[in-house]
């Protein structure tokens, strides 16, 4: 019954959010069913919209892992944007310096460097939390702002490609190093990396001793310490893995989309990941369908703008409602009678 509960309650919460959103839209004078139909059309109705949805979901899968992994250890880290940006910058630099190496080796090096950069940044927040007691939510957010400032400073200053006048960027990667698209689809390999990462991390968290230890730390730190678990190492590693995922997302953005590191890298994917991780209740496997859902929502935003003249903040409102609704539904776990096991026989009066 528990499995049904973990599925039904979030789905119910999302439906409730949808209904609230419909009400919101109706109050503003639009037909909610028309809005739903357009959202469906924009997100899932044709091959083109599906590719649109998946392309948007791709970076979000990885940045959501940046929230979900530390969350297993009980940390609420929201610094994915900073890790992504630094990962992208490192990847661009490494790729440029290895321009003459074999493409596969260079790409692996780029990915490794990006993952290391992202891992270090988020692990810093984890370390500050573990050894100095600094709240990781605030520190990871501050680190994001600092990372973006460093990024901008370097990209427009010492690392700027002199030829990139009107849009300051690092030196572009050679064509051979760029990441291609998934077979047949108009979506790049970033989606593939994301799916693999989610599956691997799901297995890691749910089916290994390490993952179990991590979840103990997340559940009750004191019990973990009493049991002799290396809490600091676990926390750091969880943060590092999360940061590596976000760094990888940055590398994919550079190597599959832009070809160099520039201000377009700062696109809010980190923040989108936060939303997805929470709706997926920090479960790496659930992140996949939720990313598709949120990606679809974002993809349909364009349709809403163009057909109904609704501002693009419309999608933000829906996302916010969904987020809040899911959080509120946490209260219902274990409370709904329909999901509780059949009552035991009444004790004799």
């Amino acid at each position, binding site marked *: 019954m528990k499995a049904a509960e973990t599925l039904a309650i979030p789905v119910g919460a999302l439906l409730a959010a949808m209904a609230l959103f419909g009400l919101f839209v109706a109050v503003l004078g639009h037909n909610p069913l028309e809005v739903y139909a357009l959202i469906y059309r924009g997100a899932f109705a044709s091959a083109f919209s599906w590719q649109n949805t998946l392309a948007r979901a791709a970076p979000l899968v990885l940045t959501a892992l940046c929230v979900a992994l530390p969350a297993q250890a009980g940390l*609420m880290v*929201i610094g994915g944007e900073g890790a992504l940006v630094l990962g992208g910058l490192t990847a661009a630099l490494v790729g440029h310096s290895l321009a003459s190496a074999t493409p596969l080796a260079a790409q692996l090096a780029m990915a490794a460097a990006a993952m290391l950069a992202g891992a270090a940044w988020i692990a810093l927040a984890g370390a*500050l939390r*573990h*050894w*100095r*007691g*600094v*709240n990781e*939510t*605030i*520190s990871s*957010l*501050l*680190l994001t*702002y*600092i990372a973006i*400032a*460093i990024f*901008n*400073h370097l990209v*427009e*200053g010492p690392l700027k490609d002199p030829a990139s006048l009107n849009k300051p960027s690092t030196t572009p990667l050679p064509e051979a190093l760029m990441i291609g698209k998934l077979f047949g689809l108009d979506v790049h390999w970033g989606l593939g990396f994301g799916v693999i990462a989610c599956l691997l991390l799901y297995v890691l968290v749910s089916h290994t001793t390490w993952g179990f230890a991590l979840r103990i730390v997340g559940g009750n730190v004191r019990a973990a310490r009493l049991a002799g678990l290396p809490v600091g190492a676990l926390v750091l590693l969880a943060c590092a893995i999360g940061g590596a995922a976000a760094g990888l997302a940055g590398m994919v953005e550079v190597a599959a989309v832009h070809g160099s590191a520039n201000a377009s890298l700062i696109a809010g994917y980190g923040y989108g990941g*936060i*939303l997805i991780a*929470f709706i997926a209740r920090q479960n790496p496997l659930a992140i996949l369908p939720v990313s598709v859902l949120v990606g679809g929502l974002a993809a349909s935003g364009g349709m809403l703008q163009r057909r109904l003249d609704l*501002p693009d*903040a*419309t*999608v*933000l*409102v829906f*996302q*916010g*409602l969904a*987020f*809040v609704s899911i*959080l*509120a539904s*946490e*209260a219902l*776990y274990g409370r709904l009678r329909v999901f509780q096991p059949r009552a035991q026989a009444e004790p004799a009066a």
Partner: protein
Amino acid sequence: MTGLGWWGVPLAVLAGAVRVSTPFLFVSLGECITEKSGRINLGLEGTLVMGAMVGYAASYGTGNPWVGVLAAGAAGFALGLLHGMLCTLPRVNDIAVGIGLMLFGTGLAFFLGKAYVQPKAPMLPGIPLGFWSDAQAVRAALQVNPLFLLGLALAVALAWAFRTTRWGLVVRMVGDSSDAARAMGYGVGTVRTLATACGGLLAGVGGSFLSLYYPGSWSEGLSSGQGLMAVALVIFAGWNPIRCFWAALLFGGAGALGPALQSVGVTWGYYLFNAAPYVVTLGIMIATCSPRRTLTGAPAELSITR
């Protein structure tokens, strides 16, 4: 009328401190109340933006900027109330709700605020405290906004209230030990919800300052994380309202440093200078936190100190 040369930098930092600190002041005082009661509200960024929009719209609609301030406070109160009520539900994590409301508040504000980017609403007046000076720059620097003075008065009042009044004691008790409060018969959830709502009210007023005085217009890029920095500010200030005032001034000054240096020709690394407030915040947090002695003065029930 000649410029002030290098004197311009400290003066600009001072002037900037007064200007830019007011939203920090209000948001941090509001968050102070909320956190003293044992809740942490990260959604104040969304409340700030919502307050800015509502304040601007109300000022435009009624022609009176003070009505705008009141309306902004009301909107903030509503969002704070929502946060408080959601967190009262069992097993709901207040940090997560804060992030969710930040998204929701910002989205809603942008959505409803579309109509108000163009029109020009009446602004809050300034009080020319620098009338004694001949230098135009000094006069402009000391052109103080009434909300700043209101905030200062509020900081003093709150400090006194927490120390002496019964209401202040109740809030602190709920924040330090919910068991003791329950034993005394106070509804912990109610007190926390009300405290969060009041925090939201102040954050909304702080937001109205942004749109009705400085920079004095409504647009979607108005806030750049000030709501979140204010939360860090409260920790830095040790949950003391008077120290919140000084911390807000410090942050405002740090924010004004970048442009001030550029105006005297120091142009290297303006991104890094613009990141000064965040670095200062982080540095201060690292210096003042410790895992062993949980932050001195922290309300024991606050989830981030556990």
